[in-house]
């Protein structure tokens, strides 16, 4: 129960940061990337602020033996660069450039009571589930042969 309450409050803080920073606002996101047009460099300050705090905070936190409410830190261990990672990132960027929402920006926007974030979110889920379905089919074919 503590974990759930703590997670809710951290999610609230994260969402508040997203909304204040402008990451939930597609017009601002798209203008950041429109250097040749109506450029708005604000997003660089969001990334800068987030990265400075995270880089320092992670150092302090990861120096501890374990997190406060869990037995260990769950950190990615892979180091190799593969086509799947880079291809996926490339496709994500194309989608972000078309819709103007990324997952972290779109979810707090769901709480604004507008239809666009809901349309984006449902479409994003469909994309995620399509990949899951494809991978399940692939692993079944692989195990059948």
């Amino acid at each position, binding site marked *: 129960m503590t974990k759930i309450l703590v997670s809710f409050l951290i999610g609230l803080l994260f969402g508040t940061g997203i909304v204040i920073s402008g990451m939930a606002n597609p017009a601002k996101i798209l203008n950041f990337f429109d250097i040749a047009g109506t450029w708005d460099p604000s997003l660089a300050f969001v990334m800068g602020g987030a990265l400075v705090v995270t880089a320092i905070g992670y150092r302090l936190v990861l120096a501890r033996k374990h997190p406060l409410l869990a037995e260990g830190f769950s950190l990615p261990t892979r180091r190799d660069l593969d086509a799947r990672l880079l291809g996926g*990132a490339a496709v994500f960027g194309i989608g972000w450039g078309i819709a103007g929402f990324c997952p972290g920006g779109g979810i707090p926007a769901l709480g604004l009571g507008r239809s666009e974030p809901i*349309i984006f979110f449902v479409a994003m889920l469909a994309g995620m589930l399509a990949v899951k379905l494809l991978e399940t089919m692939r692993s079944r074919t692989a195990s059948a042969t």
Partner: protein
Amino acid sequence: MTEFTPLTSAFGGMLIGLAVVLLMGSLGRIAGISGIVGTLFSSAPASEKSWRAAFLVGMIVAPTVLFLITGTMPVIEVPPTTAMLVIGGVLVGIGVSFGNGCTSGHGVCGMARLSGRSIAATLTFMATTAATVYLLRHVIGG
């Protein structure tokens, strides 16, 4: 046009960073939003889903809490059409699934850890996002 907001954007970014650090310090987890959503809509056990669901609910109520504190609801502007939201949304969903992360997981958590995979992924999606916006606004729409 949108107004250039260096101070509020940096402040918002620092709150995002604080939340990212607190999640690592308490539950020991990376605050990658696409990963949190992906696990929630998977066959993972309930114990893996509950904290993620709570995190997302917290994110969704953030605008309402801001409204209660400041008295004004945050305003956004959505230039893309419905068709663009659908196509873009599907591509985002596919991309983050194959690429194992998005702006938060790779762009903040991974970059702050100097993860090579995250730096490569972030540079890649920033480049394709910029190229897509250029194409849509200055080649097709221009």
